């Protein structure tokens, strides 16, 4: 075989080439079989939905999904042969599964908005519950005191749980001391502690013994027990992902272990650590049981986190939702909506903090 050289006289012809996407072209049999596989099950489902009395979820799960699976399988068999069948089944199940979870999520948030917005107003966000009884008009009172309470309790729990959680993760992944297996075992066991037990623990050890009164501090400590294992385990996973190269690289520059962790490993894991904190926050923020036991109840705005009983969104919801008066129930919905929005805001703040700039 002889060598060839680029032919310069073909240049104009080559430069005139059009952009194409040949991989998008499908044979007609593929187009047709896929079109039929989409239309036929959908049509049958539509008929069942609108002209029979079979409940909608049963139509979708019992009739539509299997039909769609079979139709996709047949279409794959026709257009791609036998090796396409498994592909099509996975495709249908994956899309079906994601739509299902999306529907659940959207209907949940939708219900929350529909019911919660009735209570929503500026005064609902900023006023407290003093002078309000379950029958008072929705034009008066709000959850400002409960928002403040929840923020205080979560903040206090973060102060305790985040440093301890990250320190635990550093011990397990960076220090690698002898107690690692035991530490991991206890952290794992702790993540199985029911939230009400965390509340009972604080109640018996700190409140009934007289060391603390019902307060945001007590609530924060109970939350910290729940938050700690989530933060520790997530941070551990994240630190494990940091390549060993970076640690050796830093040590090879004459760095101490502590500086390696603080200046190289933790900054490299920053986004993941923030995720760990967010997950820890999300784990506790809606927990009701421990707060019912340890923070007491208050209708007024409390700013003293150490000794006064305080309200929080979960306990406010709990107190209002089982009242026989529609206005109280609507207030509970409104508080639930506020809680979800609060979680959303905290997520966004964490993401912005996580982005950061390099030094």
């Amino acid at each position, binding site marked *: 075989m002889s060598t060839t050289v680029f032919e310069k006289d073909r240049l104009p012809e080559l430069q005139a080439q059009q952009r194409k996407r040949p991989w998008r072209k499908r044979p007609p049999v593929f187009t047709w079989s896929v079109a039929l596989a989409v239309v036929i099950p959908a049509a049958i489902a539509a008929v069942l939905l609108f002209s029979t009395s079979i409940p909608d979820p049963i139509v979708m799960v019992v009739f539509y999904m299997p039909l769609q699976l079979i139709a996709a399988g047949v279409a794959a068999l026709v257009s791609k042969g036998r090796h396409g069948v498994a592909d099509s089944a996975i495709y249908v199940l994956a899309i079906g599964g994601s739509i299902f979870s999306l529907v659940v999520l959207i209907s949940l948030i939708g219900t929350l908005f529909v019911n919660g917005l009735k209570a929503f107003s500026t005064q609902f966000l900023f006023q407290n519950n003093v002078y309000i009884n379950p029958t008072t008009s929705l034009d008066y009172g709000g959850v400002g005191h409960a928002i403040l309470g929840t923020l205080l309790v979560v903040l206090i729990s973060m102060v305790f749980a985040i440093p301890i959680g990250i320190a635990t993760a550093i011990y397990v992944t960076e220090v690698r001391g002898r107690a690692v297996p035991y530490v991991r075992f206890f952290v794992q066991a702790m993540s199985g502690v029911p939230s009400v037990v965390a509340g009972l623990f604080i109640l018996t050890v700190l409140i009934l013994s007289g060391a603390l009164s019902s307060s945001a501090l007590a609530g924060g400590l109970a939350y910290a027990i729940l938050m700690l294992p989530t933060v520790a385990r997530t941070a551990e996973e994240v630190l494990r992902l940091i390549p060993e190269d970076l640690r050796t690289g830093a040590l090879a520059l*004459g760095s*101490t272990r502590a500086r390696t962790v603080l200046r190289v490993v933790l*900054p*490299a894991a*920053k986004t993941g650590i923030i995720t760990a904190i967010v997950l820890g926050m999300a784990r506790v923020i809606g927990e009701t049981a421990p707060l019912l036991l340890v923070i007491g109840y208050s209708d007024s705005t409390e700013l003293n986190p150490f000794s006064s009983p305080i309200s929080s969104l979960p306990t406010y919801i709990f107190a209002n939702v089982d009242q026989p008066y529609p206005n109280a129930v609507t207030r509970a919905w409104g508080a639930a909506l506020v809680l979800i929005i609060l979680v959303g805001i905290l997520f966004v703040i964490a993401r912005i903090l996580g982005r950061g700039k*390099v030094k």
Partner: protein
Amino acid sequence: MSTAEFEPSVETLDRVEVLGSPTEGQPAPEIELDARDLSVWFGKRKVLEGVNIAFPKNSVTALIGPSGCGKSTFIRTLNRLHELIPGAALAGEVLYEGSDIYSPEIDPTHIRLKIGMVFQKPNPFPSMSIRGNVLSGLKLAGIKRPNHDDIVEETLTAAGLWNEVKDRLGATAGELSGGQAQRLVIARALAVQPHILLMDEPCSALDPASTLKIEETIRELSKDITIIIVTHNMQQAVRVSDYTAFFLAAENEPGHVVEQGPTTEIFGNPRDQRTLDYVNGRFG
């Protein structure tokens, strides 16, 4: 480049002469680092046995040999990185400025500060900018030196990267290509002003142009510091080194040094048949 293609030509050997290799009759060079009877274990497995190499001050020594013969392990014992691996053990001593770096009163961070290292895989710190990476050694070791801008420019120039990055020193180190990242970590290692620089196959992932730049850097640096480089590239060993040590490990046996000496001798007139075979690409 595969070693099988290498034939030592008159041309390459001439180049060694041009570089000015040590010749007999000159006074014995001052020894900066001296490994004596060094044996190394991973768990119960002995991977190196009785290595004796003396590294003359301000010279370049190439460590060659087939994969798995313990070159990288050896180089990591020279700045006490070996001990970070669980199950690591060691016998013998490594003398630096006359005292054993493994004696109990020596602080390993101090040793690593004086004996820097560049790894096979570029490992810039992703959370820092290019500038931050260069200065990271100073920060990590807690060294205060004025004129950070000068340090950044000097070391990046020495590593042959300055012109490519001078307009984006604040950019993330993750944006650099493999070759650029490797030159960045060389600059980072130089910024702490080590007396010795260990390089573990620094060019194995680089294109020929970057490799050439790094080799030029090595020659330039060897005026002031001692360099020990592991390489699988025979021509590179010939081009950059003054001395060469040939490592070899028989199957299931620990590695040892078969032959060592001036690079011209090892490549031009080896005494051991195995060395001759290896440098001529007949095995390994």
